[in-house]
């Protein structure tokens, strides 16, 4: 038993983090957002091409179809980085949810094109009344950087679990980024003659966010490993992760706004991009209530083995 990531996984994650930090900062989010004010989609082909060039669209595509053939744990680590950068391009949906779903269906005809970045997959599902980057008339989302279209799809449980899993990974990355922004602000904003971060009223709130994020992450990685290994309890692991990651991200979003004071309520402070993405992902692929219900049924109706008769590693 070993809960650590491999050197390769850590190196890949770090390189994606560095790449996004260097090319996809808050100024990019503001620029994309400004495009929507002129009636354009908040998209920039150069961003997508950069992700393709990094090999990320090919991450889960098997080698025989021109991909890297990596697994869902690798993808979850990268999805967390996408969350950290508040990336709006449909990379996670297409390459980390759509590809493994196609593979599970035995459908391989689109894989090479996806790996090459030529196809983006919208993923309609019965649980989501709106689909990101789908066909049809766009509706305004609370998340200004994502384009939604109305209309849902089939009720496919595997797709739901994949979508929920990758949402959780993005949520912990988003939460990390919001905590970092609020912490930095608490160090430089001065009131009563000292940085506000010196006050317990501030630092205890930030510490509570750090605890929530720290503990949500291993559950997300556990869920990714469970989905990758295809174990029977994988859906419950996904639900554990969805609730924990949603709670961590929403708590951090609320705290980060509070720590920023009145500035936190302005459009000018970039924080709202992360907060709104968190909100959007919290509601997608099964709400908190949906996933709590899956857990309570598993625990109370006996479908999940609990108790000392079972191991719970």
């Amino acid at each position: 038993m070993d809960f650590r990531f491999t050197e390769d996984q850590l190196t890949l994650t770090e390189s994606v983090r560095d790449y996004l930090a260097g090319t996809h900062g808050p100024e990019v989010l503001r620029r994309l957002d400004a495009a929507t004010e002129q009636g354009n989609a908040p998209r920039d082909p150069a961003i997508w091409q950069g992700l393709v060039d990094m090999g990320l669209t090919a991450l889960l595509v098997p080698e025989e179809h021109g991909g890297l053939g990596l697994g869902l744990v690798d993808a979850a680590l990268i999805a967390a980085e996408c969350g950290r950068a508040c990336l709006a391009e449909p990379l996670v949906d297409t390459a980390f949810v759509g590809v493994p779903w196609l593979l599970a269906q035995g459908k391989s005809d689109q894989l090479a094109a996806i790996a090459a970045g030529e196809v983006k997959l919208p993923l309609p599902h019965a649980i989501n009344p709106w689909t990101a980057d789908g066909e049809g008339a766009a509706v305004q989302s609370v998340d200004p950087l994502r384009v939604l279209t109305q209309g849902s799809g089939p009720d496919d449980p595997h797709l739901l679990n994949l979508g929920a899993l990758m949402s959780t990974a993005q949520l912990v990355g988003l939460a990390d980024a919001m905590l970092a922004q609020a912490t930095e602000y608490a160090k430089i904003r001065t009131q009563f003659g000292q940085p506000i971060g010196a006050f317990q009223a501030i630092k205890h709130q930030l510490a509570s966010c750090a605890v929530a994020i720290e503990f949500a992450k291993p559950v997300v990685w556990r869920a990714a490993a469970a989905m990758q290994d295809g174990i029977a309890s994988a859906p419950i692991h996904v639900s554990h992760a969805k609730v924990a990651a949603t709670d961590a991200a929403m708590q951090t979003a609320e705290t980060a706004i509070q720590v920023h004071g009145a500035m936190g309520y302005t459009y000018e402070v970039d924080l709202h991009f992360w907060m709104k993405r968190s909100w959007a992902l919290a509601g997608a692929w099964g709400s908190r209530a949906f996933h709590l219900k899956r857990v309570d049924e598993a625990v109370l109706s006996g479908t999940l083995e609990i108790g000392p008769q079972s191991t719970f590693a």
Partner: protein
Amino acid sequence: MKLGFSAADELFRQECADWLNAEMAGEFRDIKGITKLTASPERRKEWEQRLGEAKWGCIGWPEQWGGRNATLAQQVIFAEEYARAGVPGRVNHIGIELAGPTILAFGSEEQKRRFLPDIAAGKTIFCQGFSEPGAGSDLASVRTKGRLENGAWIVNGQKIWTSLAHISDWIFVVTRTEEGSKGPKGLTFLMMEIDQPGIEIRGIKQINGDAEFNETFFTDARCPADSMIGAVGDGWKIAMGLLAFERGVSTLGQQMAFRNELDELIAAAKANSAASNPLIRQRIAKAEIGLRLMRYGALRMLSNTDHSKIDGAALTYKIQWATWRRNLGELAMDVLGQAGEVTEGSEYEWDTLPNLFLYSRADTIYGGTNQIQRNLIAERGLGLPREPRGDV
């Protein structure tokens, strides 16, 4: 990332289960199922020795000192089987989890030879003398004095909240050995035998009626100079090193006890139909998720073999489990309703779930209150400016 257990691990599991079940069905059947910390102390000391004889007392320790050099997976398995077999908690967990590793890290070779085999054998029960009436959250302000006289330390002062001191053989004590020193400077770490005229133990009755904690008074108590760990003035460094061991594998055994508590709560909710109430169901689901958070958090923390730096997981662990357990106690009371407020018999003694509600109030206080934990997380983990610390 490799989860799950190998075939060899499963064989090891069988070996653990067979041995533990045989003991709990045989010579030690009278202690099976005990959850109260202070119950049957003499029999549980005998149990410590039985564990030691069979080399199950501290399986994670090096073989040289009575352990098995067990892998993480084996320690997980042993903790699971231990709880599954209904074996009561360890009365020497301070010795195994704190004193032993501290001696291993900071003690001399002679001290290792003198202390470790007896701790491993379950023959030396340890307790911890850190807190004082005037040094709680502000631990560095300890005032218990030690002075060196004719080759021995003479200790005067008082410790408090000394868990299980009344059944322990030894106590490790942080003493102020430099006259006029303040804060973390001038402290020294001593190992002291309890059975001597200069040490007096008085129990402190707690809100659950039990008396696990004690006041420990030192009046010219003696400690041979060769029972000092590290050097004069190293006390703070060693005390902090010791606290870092608390993230150890004890967390795994602790989590199995939590698992049992949650299962008992679920059984109670099913029995009195509280489980059909959607609000209760949601809270049970939250508790289950919280347990998973701790589980995978601990596995990640323990998989990290580089213990040289305090990582985020280690820093955040205490507040997470303490808060979870306090919430579980509150949920237990909501599940039980008024039935949780009455106890059979004339003694002020409580079943597992009402006792959990009462006892878990201590969890968010001892070992650093939730508020102190948040200070540490914010300052060490997030790098926020430090709290004012008086004149230290």
